[in-house]
């Protein structure tokens, strides 16, 4: 079996660098190391397919001479797909652990849907309450000062602070 020296060197370098990077305590680096090592192994499998040849599509005569070995290519394709899936999962894991690191103690309090709904509706009520207040104050202001039409100081729903200003003007 003949093997390409370039590919062999490439595979070993990928392997060495990947393992070195994986030694770090940083999850992102571990992911990078895993990718490097995974590619190194893929090239290693490719090396095992022996001498290169033409595309492995056998003619009807069944003459297989001079064709590349298709089996390692199948392995590599499968391994790439698996690595892809695992990488996606690791990225999610890294994101989650970063998130936990940012939040500290609060990171573990996972809100259920019920809690989130409650929180949302509480916020909506609060806003609605603010709006009512603002409208009420705007109406009061317009009562105090008949010259100013109520429409000229439209109560801003989110910025209640602007309304007392209108009321203070007279």
């Amino acid at each position, binding site marked *: 079996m003949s093997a390409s020296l370039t590919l062999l060197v490439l595979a070993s370098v990928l392997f060495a660098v990947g393992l070195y990077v994986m030694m770090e305590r940083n999850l992102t680096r571990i992911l990078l190391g895993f990718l490097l090592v995974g590619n190194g192994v893929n090239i290693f499998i490719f090396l095992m397919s022996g001498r290169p040849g033409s595309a492995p599509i056998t003619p009807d005569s069944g003459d297989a001479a001079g064709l590349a070995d298709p*089996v390692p290519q199948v392995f590599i394709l499968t391994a790439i797909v698996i690595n892809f899936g695992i990488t996606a999962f690791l990225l999610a894991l890294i994101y989650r652990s970063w998130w936990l690191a940012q939040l500290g103690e609060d990171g573990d309090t996972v809100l*259920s849907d019920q809690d989130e709904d409650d929180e949302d509706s509480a916020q909506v009520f609060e806003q609605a309450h603010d709006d009512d207040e603002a409208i009420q104050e705007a109406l009061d202001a317009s009562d105090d000062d008949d010259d100013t039409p109520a429409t000229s100081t439209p109560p801003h729903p989110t910025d209640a602070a602007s309304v007392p200003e209108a009321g203070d003007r007279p």
Partner: protein
Amino acid sequence: MTWLVPLVVILPLLGAAATLVVSRNRRLQILLSVGMLTIVTLVSIALLVIVDAGGTLAVQVGGWAAPWGITLVVDRLSAIMLVISALMLLGVLVYSVGQGIADGDQETPLSIFHPSYLVLAAGLFNVFIAGDLFNLYVGFEMLLAASYVLLTLGSTGVRIRAGTTYIIVSLVSSVFFLGAIALVYGATGTVNLAQLSERLGELPGDVQLLLHAALLIGFAVKAAVYPVSFWLPDSYPTAPAPVTAVFAGLLTKVGVYAILRTETLLFPGGQLSQVLLWVALLTLLVGILGAVAQADIKRLLSFTLVSHIGYMIFGIALASLSGLTATVFYVVHHITVQTTLFLVTGLIERIGGTTSINRLAGLLKAAPLISILFFIPALNLGGIPPFSGFIGKVGLFLAGSEQGGWLVWVVIAAGAVTSLLTLYALMRVWNMVFWRGKSELEGYTSPMLESLQETDEATIGKVQSTTPRLMVGTTIVMVCLTVSLTFCAGPLMDLAGRAAADLLDPSSYLTAVLGGGNG
């Protein structure tokens, strides 16, 4: 009847897809996954009957002939593993459904839990029926990817931390395994197990040794044997109880199964059996010494899990008929007992609110049923006669004494010590958690104990009635299963003997895969 073979992989995968589609409808999801696993259990029992009567079944997927296509093989060992793991998966699934219904799915969010659980099952079954190394790798990856999801379920801080260790160790071992496959292919030009078993023997000794060691290292990490076992006790205990139970029972046995195949089909002749004996010795002792030092039931059980893998490695290293017979029997026994113990621990955690033995007391009075459920498998694991643990260990020791040699005797002695220490560790749990009165506990009160103190002595068994019936019921069934292993030990040992004979004489395997004369 070969059409039954692929079903064990296809059905769980279809089930996984279906449960994902109907993830909004929890009832339907539960129905689907329980139904699928029930069918798979029936199929594997049918396979066991067929294979035991009529010999090894082989399926060439897609009609591609053996060395090129994907081959699925079911021999007696595969069939035994299929049946026992399908039973365990089904039992634990029902338990987790019970827990999910009771807890409002806090611990096991159903929408992800069921699909990943079924993918895990499909991966497991795929490993057991894989007829070539690469399919074995794919099966491993399927079950590992699913196990990553299950282990980090809910992604709380603790689980992410534990999961990270597990995932990285698994990734590295998978890469090693893939590299080993590349080496094997480079040396022999095939990955078909049957063809490998013919070609590997023709290779020069040093190449054989390299391939042998490369494969074993990959599998050893998965089986958690001594030098590469330290990831296990750190990662298993944090997962939800049903997940831990499945992992403890089945995932390590997948590694043991792969080692068993490697040692019998690929590299017969026990080239590395001295190494394996040393590994078995150290696994037994280091594991059990770790268990003795633990104060948390889940961690303690994880360490006994590591330790008892040593028994199986010991049987494999003996490579004799009696040794392999006892190993197959021990694998079956250990899968059921370890799974059951973790399920009972889940019940203890529900009642006591913790699994630390320093913080639990008086459970015997509060929950007598659960005490019994813990006591029986605990004695079984410790190897008290007449339970199956005793039978398995005696089988292994007898097989070792036939072989002789100082190292074998040392391992037998270590096995006996391990058995005693297992008993010691589990009885410590029994004394602290169940036996001692709640008054002996100082400085900590669990919710259970508070409720006991309020109502005092009058309500024995009140706490127990608050645990979901489905969980307790499943656990009772599992405990009955472990006990039934003892009653069926004779037929089971015979079956294991036939499986071991198949392993030692791979001719039926080769004929089934490669066909009559063209091998």
